[in-house]
């Protein structure tokens, strides 16, 4: 037994030693995103945005005179993996803060871990409303919740698109179910009726049965909560079946991946998103240019999310004047950040407000802004 146990001692020792040497030189920020699995597309773009922010920060000399470093882990959008990743980042890599973990249930699982070890966690993506209701003082959410988004746009959908008989389709996870629940609540309150409500699994490749049901349900509009991979297939198959029902979605619908994958089938679809590359805020143009130059495609919702998260953290570290967790947390609470999609400030629960969300319509592959709304505190 001892033969087997001795070599890991060496390994762990070396790993810990090497970490110790570097800790003086850089400030480490942990990133937990899904790099594999069915939302890997989106997780990867988040990391891309994060890296862009990192380079911009380091080009200006870093923070507190030191370079910033990102330590990236694959949470796979799974709570258990994300928790493991968080443990490793905190214990082995000694990060000062974490950005992650994309899916709300993963973020939810990581929250007690950061509370236990006392360091800040920021998410630019997780939209389940309950995260900021947990009373975890170390958690900050730099994006909208499903509830806020639903409230912002339901009226427009009801009035402008004249949606009266609505079908709801969501991916079977907290995001899909949460999105459907929130929008259904708002639309029904305005007077629409629900004619169908169905969920599908991550990674489904054949939506014909679901779409056939949609066709026979007589809906005049369908709400879809799905990410790039599943959503693009759904949209393409909808076109294959010749369905002309008005469709609008939340999730990755205005991202360039999605548009590229769906091609013509995306024409006319509406999406409610916290970021679109066609937004006309002062900072967006520079962001879009830098991102496109580096990654050969326009940024989408998740790119902006990653970009914002890292920038917010870096600004907070500078504001705190140190990487001490308590000071950093307080500094985060006083965030006053201008991102490509607007202004960010956190309330006492860690929920951001002041930034814009848009309703876009995909016309000829361009997410054209149809309406803008600001998330109020």
């Amino acid at each position: 037994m001892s033969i087997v146990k001795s070599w890991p001692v060496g390994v762990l020792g070396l790993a810990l030693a090497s970490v110790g040497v570097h800790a003086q030189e850089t400030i480490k920020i942990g990133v937990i995103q899904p790099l594999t699995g069915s939302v890997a597309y989106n997780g990867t773009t988040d990391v891309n945005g994060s890296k862009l922010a990192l380079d911009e920060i380091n080009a200006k000399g870093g923070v507190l005179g030191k370079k910033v470093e990102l330590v990236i882990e694959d949470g796979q959008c799974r709570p258990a993996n994300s928790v493991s990743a968080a443990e490793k980042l905190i214990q082995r890599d000694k990060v000062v803060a974490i950005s992650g973990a994309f899916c709300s249930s993963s973020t939810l699982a990581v929250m007690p871990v950061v509370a236990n070890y006392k360091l800040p966690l920021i998410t630019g993506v997780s939209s389940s409303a309950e995260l900021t209701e947990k009373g975890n003082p170390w958690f900050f959410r730099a994006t909208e919740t499903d509830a806020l988004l639903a409230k912002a746009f339901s009226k427009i959908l009801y009035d402008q698109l004249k949606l009266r008989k609505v079908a709801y389709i969501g991916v079977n996870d907290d995001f899909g179910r949460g999105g459907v629940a929130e929008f259904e609540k708002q639309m029904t309150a305005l007077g629409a009726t629900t004619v169908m409500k169905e969920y599908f699994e991550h990674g489904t490749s054949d939506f014909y049965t679901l779409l056939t049901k949609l066709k026979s349900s007589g809906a005049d509009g369908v709400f879809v909560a799905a990410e790039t991979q599943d959503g693009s297939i759904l949209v393409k198959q909808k076109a294959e079946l010749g369905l002309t029902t008005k469709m609008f979605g939340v999730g990755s619908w205005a991202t360039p991946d999605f548009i590229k994958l769906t091609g013509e089938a995306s024409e006319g679809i509406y999406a409610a998103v916290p970021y679109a590359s066609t937004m006309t805020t002062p900072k967006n143009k520079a962001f879009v240019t830098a991102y496109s130059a580096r990654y050969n495609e326009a940024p989408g919702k998740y790119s902006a999310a990653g970009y914002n998260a890292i920038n917010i953290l870096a600004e907070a570290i500078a504001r705190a004047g140190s990487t001490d967790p308590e000071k950093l947390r307080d500094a985060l609470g006083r965030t006053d950040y201008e991102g490509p999609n607007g202004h960010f400030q956190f309330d006492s629960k860690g929920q951001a407000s002041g930034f814009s969300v848009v309703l876009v319509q995909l016309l000829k592959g361009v997410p054209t802004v149809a309406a803008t709304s600001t998330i109020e505190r």
Partner: protein
Amino acid sequence: MDLFLQLLANGLVIGTFYALSALGLTLVFGLMRVVNFAHGELYVVGGLLGWSLTDLVGLNFFLTLAVVIFSLAVGGYLIDRLLMARVRGQGEEPTILLTIGLSIFLTNTALLIVGTAPERVVSPFANKPLFFGPVVITQSRLVLVAISAALILAVHLLIQRTTLGRSMRATFQDSMAAQLSGIRTAQVYGFTFALGAALAGAAGMLLGSIYVAQATIGDVVSLKAFVVVILGGMGSFAGAIVGGLILGISEAFWGGYMSSGYVDAIGFGLVIAMLLVRPYGLFGKHAERA
């Protein structure tokens, strides 16, 4: 009525696809008594190879299909001779474990090379909807059903009418007797596995033109193939076709009239029921050996 017809059409189409993708599996089991747990991964390799040739290189669809079939046949032959042959006499468990290990390796190596993104095999057939009364179907799906049927027929002829096919059937019936009559059974095993792999790969490429070619779908494909093969009977051609259609239609109707959530469970429920009532499936024929 419209709903019923459309669901039926959906079920028949997808059932044919299930049958095609399960064919390689049932063949390998029927002729070699080996359950190839890497079947789904061979499907994936076929799909990814098909995508890279049609999309990245721009090769013609049918030429790519030929290349995929040939490459997977070679790959399958090598897998059999280098890996499976070593554990052939040792019973069922080592081959099961070996193919599971192979499947893990193939999936993750594919992930390493290609990444997780879903890709499409470029198809020359349009995806525009064709309307047959109340039923909608796309041109590409129709063509694919036709190609699947052609492939199934071709394999059937191969096994029933050619010398190679006869050697295969002889080796299955009694490998000792086959060896005694001069058949090089080692090679026959290799060719059989190659055929199974080639079919899996062909299915992967064809279906990759209307669904996805992706490194992570191997497990799902294997599972569905198992369901089809058990329903229809391991080793039976007709069984694979009937099993596939039954699965496709049941899923379509359940999903259409009930909910989409438990659709996948239908297949498993059918398997469990089938294994209790008629373990050798609807068309299975062999007896238990001591």
